[in-house]
């Protein structure tokens, strides 16, 4: 009920080199995902659906595709007179130019931007996760528990806990310790890299961290431990639902296969929490008389003359006559030539798989195409 101003800052600066060919010419958040989206659409749509209208995107790596995708923010209703979505690259000041040195440094360099909105809370988000989350609930939780900082966590299987940043909590979900990839985890609550901070507090710690020459200027490694050390109240907010970091080619491919499960927890057909993206103005897709499609997702502008099984076809991709596509991801405007056979292959956007080419196998994920320009 009470009006509180929240600014969301999306960390979208990483190169994401573990996504290999997908990110060679494109920032990770702008990588195509799920047939019609880009990875950042999930975070941006979460902001829009949560009623958060002031969003900064921190980026410094190959931003053209990201900029072109976001435009003025219309798809997310974030083309606002004040606030709205703004891409925040590094800049020069009288002291010279500085690239962002870490996640906390990227926020530090944009303190003026945040101050402009005079928010009570700042929500720190990551631009490369696939999930649906109502941030309002997390902020309500933060407020009702009188927290200084709230970290969103997800329960992971105990045997996998040592791969994550683990938050050790007391019974009432008060965090007392942050454990980065612990060899012997004391808890199975993994940080999702989503934080709510009281802005005044964060502002102070960012300034101190900036002066600290030993710091790597990272939220997980520096800011959170320091705030804990000083004894501030930090709460763990338990998230339940689908959440996936698509930072590797394997997890990227798995997340796509998850979408083929009609009962998948991401529930993309839910009209109450739509995922918005740039409209590419393509007509409905067409399946010819000889085309055959099963257990697959198709999108606008696709044309199918061949056979598609257990695959995702992105906007305006074409499967020519006699081609067989299985367990694969075809990115926008790609073409699979006549009689080509694909298995567990990611075809990069605008790439053309030659007539009769056979690619991929059950064992490993194959790329068709060397790099994705990301721009349509």
């Amino acid at each position: 009920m009470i009006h509180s101003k929240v600014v969301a800052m999306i960390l979208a600066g990483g190169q994401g080199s573990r996504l290999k060919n997908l990110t060679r010419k494109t920032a990770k958040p702008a990588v195509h995902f799920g047939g019609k989206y880009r990875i950042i659409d999930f975070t941006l749509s979460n902001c829009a659906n949560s009623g958060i209208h002031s969003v900064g995107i921190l980026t410094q790596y190959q931003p053209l595709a990201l900029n072109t995708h976001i435009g003025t923010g219309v798809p997310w209703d974030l083309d606002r007179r004040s606030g709205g979505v703004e891409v925040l690259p590094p800049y020069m000041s009288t002291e010279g130019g500085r690239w962002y040195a870490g996640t906390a440094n990227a926020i530090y360099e944009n303190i003026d931007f945040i101050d402009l909105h005079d928010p009570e809370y700042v929500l720190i988000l990551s631009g490369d996760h696939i999930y649906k989350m109502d941030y309002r609930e997390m902020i309500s939780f933060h407020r009702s528990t009188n927290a200084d900082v709230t970290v969103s966590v997800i329960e992971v299987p105990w045997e996998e806990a040592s791969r994550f940043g683990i938050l050790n909590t007391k019974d009432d979900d008060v965090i007392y310790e942050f454990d980065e990839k612990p060899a012997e985890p004391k808890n199975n609550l993994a940080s999702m890299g989503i934080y709510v901070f009281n802005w005044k507090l964060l502002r102070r710690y960012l300034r101190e961290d900036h002066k600290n020459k030993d710091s790597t200027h990272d939220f997980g490694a520096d800011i959170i431990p320091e705030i804990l050390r000083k004894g501030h109240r930090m709460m763990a907010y338990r998230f339940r639902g689908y959440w996936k970091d698509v930072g590797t080619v394997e997890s990227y491919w798995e997340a796509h296969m998850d979408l083929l499960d009609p009962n998948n927890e991401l529930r993309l057909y839910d009209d109450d929490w739509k995922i918005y993206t740039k409209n590419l103005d393509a007509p409905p897709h067409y399946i010819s008389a000889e085309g055959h499609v099963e257990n697959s997702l198709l999108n606008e502008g696709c044309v199918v003359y061949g056979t598609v099984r257990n695959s995702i076809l992105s906007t305006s991709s074409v499967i020519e006559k006699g081609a067989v596509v299985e367990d694969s991801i075809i990115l926008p405007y790609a073409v699979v030539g006549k009689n080509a056979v694909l298995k567990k292959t990611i075809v990069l956007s605008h790439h053309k798989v030659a007539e009769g080419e056979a690619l991929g196998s059950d064992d490993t994920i194959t790329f068709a195409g060397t790099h994705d320009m990301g721009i349509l």
Partner: protein
Amino acid sequence: MSINLQGIINLGEREDYIRELTMNRPLATIPFAGRYRLIDFTLSNMVNSGIDSISLIVKNKFHSLNDHIGPGKDWDLDRKTGGLRILYPDMQPDLNLISVGDIPVVRSNLSHFSSIKKDYILLTRSNYIGNINYRPAFEEHVKKGSDITILTRHIRNGRARVELLGMDIVQKRNNSYTIGRNLGNQNDFDLSIEMFIMKKSVFLRIIHDAIEEGAEAFLKKAIISRLGEYKVSTYTIEDDILPIHSIQQYYNASLAILDPAYAEYLFYKHGKIYTKAKDAPSTLYAAGSEVNHSLIANGCVIEGTVENSIIFRDVHIGRGAVVRNSIVFQDTDISTGANLNYCIVDKFVHVGKGKVLMGDGGLPYVIKKGVSIR
């Protein structure tokens, strides 16, 4: 850079042809081709031809149009200057009456027409489907120094074509042009596609004359009856254009899109066709679905069989259901085992389990918006 041509789309014309689909919507917002409305084609053609200032003359049923167009962002027409301007009829506070025809709407908006900044206007309707570049016609109009250019399609062997009966044809007699009705007596003729390019000054004079003389109720008639007073040319459009004057023409034009070559022309030739973004997710084809020779929009879940059909957004085709030779509008649910042939199913319809609905290619069976067949 923008073009010196103002678009005027007249939705005030008679539109009693397709009553089945125009109970709650004007002709302009009849759904078409899986995700569009008829007016999207005219709007997009104008925008793609460089026209950045468009007036829309409307007479009634505003809601559907407002819903679809909103602030005009999808066509990039939400502009400070120019952009899209909807011209409503004026309701006199005391009389609360509006009269027959579109001329009263024109009269209510005279000051708008006078304030048009462009020197030329393009007057069209919303019920001709095509991917049209208006630039060559416009350049020819300017080059010739014509007052009025009538855009036409040349028809060969038209005598046998029943669907062209009653449509406007252009003839030249004694060096002046006339527009009348096609009674099927001629074989080769020029069809008027109800699109006119005019000098703005000429357009203004015609509407002023028509209002002062009070003889015509419709703008088109006002132009036709004054052709003799102006320097008139015709320009033959070579692009394929399908008129939508009847439910039969609507059905045929819809199925025409299943020809990939025609679809390539219609959706891409001179630019894309824009429509309201609906943010529908991918369409899911379940194992066991069978779809052939069909156009399917996003957001659907297909578990049954679809053949030779057009399926709009967010439609569910249940397991074992069969849809053939049909057009299914958005948010409709075809339940398990239902069987449809030659149907046009409007929005928000529910067809219950195992129901069988059969129309005919010559007279498709129209199921009205919101109907539930249990």
